[in-house]
């Protein structure tokens, strides 16, 4: 449940923050959200990755359909990769890695800051 929650939060963060700020600000925000939720590292990675990957795929796919522009195709020829849809996929993968790494870092930060549980049973 928390996994879906974090994924959803990442989607929100990317959707709201990214239009106004560059990707590295988005990375920090995802890290903070992930630290607040506090899921284990790998689960956080997955939630962040899926969240941001989805948004980036969604946005780039939506823009190419909505605009009807040939630019994705032109860009893919310029870069030398398949088609415009290949670029949607590459954009998604980039978002996936950025989101994943950020969320993982957030989670790792929380673990590192969390006091060692040993003391709980003392006294």
């Amino acid at each position, binding site marked *: 449940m928390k996994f879906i929650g974090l994924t959803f939060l990442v989607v929100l963060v990317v959707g709201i923050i*990214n*239009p106004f700020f*560059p*990707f*590295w600000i988005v*990375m920090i925000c995802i*890290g903070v959200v992930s630290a607040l939720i506090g899921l284990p*590292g790998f689960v956080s990675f997955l939630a962040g990755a899926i969240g941001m990957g989805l*948004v*980036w795929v969604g*946005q*780039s796919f939506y*823009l*190419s359909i*909505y*605009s*009807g*522009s*040939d*630019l*994705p*195709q*032109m*860009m893919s*020829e*310029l870069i030398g990769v398949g088609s415009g849809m290949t*670029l949607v996929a*590459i*954009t998604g993968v*980039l978002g996936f*890695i*950025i989101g994943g*790494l*950020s969320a*993982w*870092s957030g*989670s*790792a*930060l929380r*673990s*590192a800051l*969390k006091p060692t549980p040993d003391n709980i049973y003392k006294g």
Partner: protein
Amino acid sequence: MKYISLIVSLILSIGFAVLISRPIDSVPPLAGLLDPNHGFWQNTLSEDQIAEDEIDLENLSAPVKVIYDEDLIPHVFAENELDLYRAQGYITAQHRLWQMEFQTHAAAGRLSEIVGPVAIELDRMNRRKGLAFGAEKGLAGMSSQPEVEAILEAFSDGVNQYINSLSSATLPVEYKILNYRPEPWTPYKSALLLKYMADMLMGDADLQFSNLRKILGQEMVDKLFPYFPEDNDPVIEAERVWAFEPIEIQAPDSTTYPDDLLVLDPLPAPEPGIGSNNWAVAGSKTKSGRPILANDPHLGLNLPSIWYSMQLTTPEHSVKGATLPGAIGVISGFNENIAWGVTNATKDARDWYKITFKDESRRQYKFGEEWRDTEFRIEEIKVKGQESFIDTVVYTHYGPVVYDKTFRSDRQDVNFSLKWTAHDESQEVKTFILMNKAKNHDDYNAALDNYIAPPQNFVFAAKDGDIAMRIQGKFPVKWEGQGRFFMDGADPLMDWQAYIPFDQNASTLNPERGFVSSANQHPVDPSYPYFVWDRSYEHYRNRRLNNQLRQMNDITVDDMKALQFDDYYLHAAEALPVMMELLDESKFDSDDAKKYIQELKSWDFYADPNQKAPTLFYIWWDKVDDEVWKEWYAWDAPITTPNNYQMVSLMKNEPDSEIFDHGNTENVENASTHVNAGFESMLARMAEWEAEEGDYSWANYKRTSVRHLVPQFESFSVSNVYTGGGRGILNATSERHGASWRMVVELGEQPNAYGIYPGGQSGNPGSRFYSNMINRWSKGEYIDFSLRSVEDTQEALFTTTLN
């Protein structure tokens, strides 16, 4: 353990973030390019999808309304001129910012800053030609007039307000790919743009002629390159009587030219066959009784298009037509009262002088009896990813020493200075500001009195019935032959001694024949009292155009459109019968050869896109040319060959002339030898083409393409445009050049106007307005270019108010 996880995750995160924020070789930062919110995805949106009802534009005295028509042509309604040009700057930048900056960077010799060391050679050349130097002088001239300066400042302010409003999302995609940002616009850049045009339109062949003279001797050069052709059909009608006292200059008693064979790399010259048409017909020849004006400048076919269409309106005037992004006002267009258009009027405005320096230091050079001081201009060329390249250019009173020991020459003693009218102070901006609101022939002349370079044939028609043509530019008075060859800069008589007064520039008003026209041909008849020469004059389009205009009556706008799209191949019509006569058909009995001969014989000489014969003729002629001048091409020096017209004339009238005989062979060659050998080569070429490509119809062979300004951005170009025409044809569309703008205007109570250009209003390759006119242009179709009123928002794409 928990710290290890943190450290690893942070290193990976930060490392990845850095990796995708930096360029790797020529690959731009991936994050900036692919981020859907900031990268190229944002450039997929067309202008109507991101249209705003209101935009803040500071420093306006009143709101400016902009109505875009369905092709994204802005119709700008301002209360006064300053508001108008401020808005022009803003709107042009909205659609063409990257192009404006790129072209001025090119002229300034600053492309290396953007693309790196590959452009150093080009940058050095543009600086050595003195384009930036000329722009500085040009700007000084413009700034000396407060009203012009204020307009230039307003325009720049408009551009800069747009630049400042840019976000990483709205930045043009080329900046994202090449990874740089726009810098502020200045009036200096508007001046640079005019030099960019001057450079595109002016060339010379002094180097090539100097070599020919050295190899062939003056007599042969005179025979092969006569000053006037037999069928001279000049811009100003031959009957024109010149009623003025010309300025006299002193010619040298004996002309001795520097006599070296010059193995230099010549500067790139304008493409042969590049040029333009314009004409106006008087009401006496039109069906409506009103004058009609037409203009189609032929330039390189590029994207974003060299032209950008606008209507610019104040309460005092309303002008519409083609603007040059970065320049003030409309360059070829019309208003309620008049219409005007331009074609290039070359008249050898560039000359070269051999400089004799006193010593190695190059601080002084010889001029007559004295030693004059030089000036040094240090050119720092910034290079992306490298240290700057420092070039020192020596200036004499003639101009920059372009060729010297450091540039395009292996020899220590080679020093040539370039003299060029584009280096002079000028007022071109004022010309267009005045022309935009001109009401009659007097206003037109007053506007042109400010115009220096690049020289143009300005055609004119007015509502009151006047039609006119004036060849305007700053032209030196030359003694016969001056400027054909490299000259000795130490001899003052070789220098330009005076300029032709503007009122003695060739012009005509309401000639009896009922039309005026120009197609880059000889400007005048030999009776004009000044020496006129250029090697690049047109010999075909002008005669076709004038022949048609002479015989046409009851002319309509549609007739004029058809004439702009006329595919009649006059060169072929004159050359092919001669070639057929010289061809020994019995030697070629293969089926293919018979088929080709049949196709050529039944040809009507129209180079329409579906015709096959133009391809056959084109290749055959090319091969014959190769055969005839084989020996010349083998010389290890830059030369030029006689033009097509002269060559046809030689083949026809002197087929056994010694010029056709190659000295190094046993046999005696004549024109027929070359025609037959050319046919043989054509068969080989055609066999190759048919095997590889199959269809050899003209459009498929010619493959007209409209290319993005950065040649590497192949996918931003439009290739294989299906259209006819070619060099020397009124529809002058060749592989990479052609009608960059077509306009036909019928003056009257309301001007009835049509226009089109091969591109689109938007400079954004992602926009649906980037290349949307190309298809219509290729079929000879036009867009309705009538003036709009501020109330007329019918079929508007969208409307924006700047305030």
